[in-house]
């Protein structure tokens, strides 16, 4: 049994939320640069330049990448042989509290659907716990903006809808969203499970490394085909038209009921801010 003090979790969350809000991952920047080389629209190309220049100003000038520093989402994978000496939820929320204050990040959480009073420290984080083999604690941490989250959807398709039904739903969702989720986007898709699980695995798919592919050959092919078809929609960066609508498509899946084909589509803006920390 390995013991982990909650203060170590708090520290990791605090450092991570500050880091991801000031620094884009190199793999993301190189995808944007690659997209720019193929982009035929002048306005679209100028917007892609803005995004790259923005990442440089943020890093060097010590200004957050985006004013929407998001809701913190944490997938915590706890090893069976780990004992956390305290309350993991409190430890994570304390890290959010400290990180958003010390990092000068915007507090975007409100308390109630209608009262809408700001909680003033960006808590609570959206926390998903799972248990895995081993004696490590893995924290997958994201700051997720509201604009792209608002363009996400869950739909229960019939099994007969199949691959074509899933494709149509994804393409319609991305097209309808237009410029609102800040394209070029990353599309996270959850297939199967049930109503709520599909949404959770869609979110989790967005935390996969940008360059990877699904282990399942059918799903990997669907990721590739959707990537091509989404980029043919012509939505373009910020919806102004162009060849660059998405940077990646990620699909996670689970077994499901014989009657159902749940599909969740979680849209991520170009400022994909996430990190993985192993404690």
């Amino acid at each position, binding site marked *: 049994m390995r013991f982990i003090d909650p203060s170590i979790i708090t520290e990791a969350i605090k450092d991570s939320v500050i880091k991801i809000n000031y620094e884009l991952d190199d793999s993301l920047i190189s995808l944007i640069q690659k997209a720019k080389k193929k982009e035929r629209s002048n306005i679209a190309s100028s917007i892609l330049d803005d995004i790259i220049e923005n990442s440089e100003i943020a890093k060097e000038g010590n200004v957050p990448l985006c004013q929407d520093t998001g809701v913190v989402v944490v997938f915590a994978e706890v090893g069976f042989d780990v004992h956390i000496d305290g309350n993991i939820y409190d430890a994570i929320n304390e890290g959010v509290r400290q990180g958003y204050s010390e990092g000068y990040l915007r507090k975007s959480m409100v308390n109630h659907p209608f009262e809408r009073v700001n909680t*003033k420290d960006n808590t609570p984080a959206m926390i998903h716990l799972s248990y895995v083999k081993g004696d490590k604690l893995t924290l997958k941490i994201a700051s997720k903006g509201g*604009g792209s989250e608002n363009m996400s959807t869950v739909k229960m398709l019939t099994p007969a809808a199949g691959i074509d039904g899933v494709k149509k739903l994804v393409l319609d969702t991305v097209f309808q969203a237009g410029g609102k989720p800040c394209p070029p986007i990353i599309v996270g898709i959850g297939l199967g499970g049930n109503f709520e699980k599909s949404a959770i695995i869609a979110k989790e798919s967005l935390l996969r490394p940008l360059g990877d592919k699904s282990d399942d050959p059918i799903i990997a092919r669907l990721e590739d085909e959707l990537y091509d078809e989404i980029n043919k929609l012509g939505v373009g960066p*910020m919806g102004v038209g162009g060849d660059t609508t998405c940077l990646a498509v990620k699909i996670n899946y689970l077994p499901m009921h014989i009657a159902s084909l749940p599909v969740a589509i979680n849209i991520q803006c170009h400022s994909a801010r996430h990190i993985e920390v192993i404690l």
Partner: protein
Amino acid sequence: MIRLSSPISNHDINNLKSGDKVLITGTIYTARDQAHIRLLNEKNLPFPIEGSIIYYVGPTPKKEGFAIGASGPTSSYRMDEMAVPLMEKGLKIMIGKGDRSEEFRHEMMKNNAVYLIATGGAGALLSSRIKSSKLIAYEDLGAEAIYQLEVEDFPCFVAYDVHGHNLFKDRL
């Protein structure tokens, strides 16, 4: 490339065409969801609305030595209905991101106003074009309060113009 200075005249508006790159210098006001709800209930608006520019933004907290925090646009569609009475009072330019409703676009043309977009997610870049910020109303709203900003060469694109063009639709 078109340079604009505040306040904005009808002549300025007529000259703008969808797809034009615009650099704005002068005074702009911030307002998003909650500030709009309050503005609609005000007898006397907290800033001169005639010829004004509203920027849909909720910045990150300001650091010592900076004019403002990260300041990119938020999605404009949430302000569609609430923008109409403000345009009727003389609001000329709205800056945000993303498509808006057809109803909004027609009201906008009727009131001789335009809708510009700034690059979403470029909060650090856009903040570097803001030279000062001053809180002028609704301090309790925090990031959603109304600020008066002085900007220099603030970069935007014309999305909807008064001649009926729509950058988001014309692309297709």
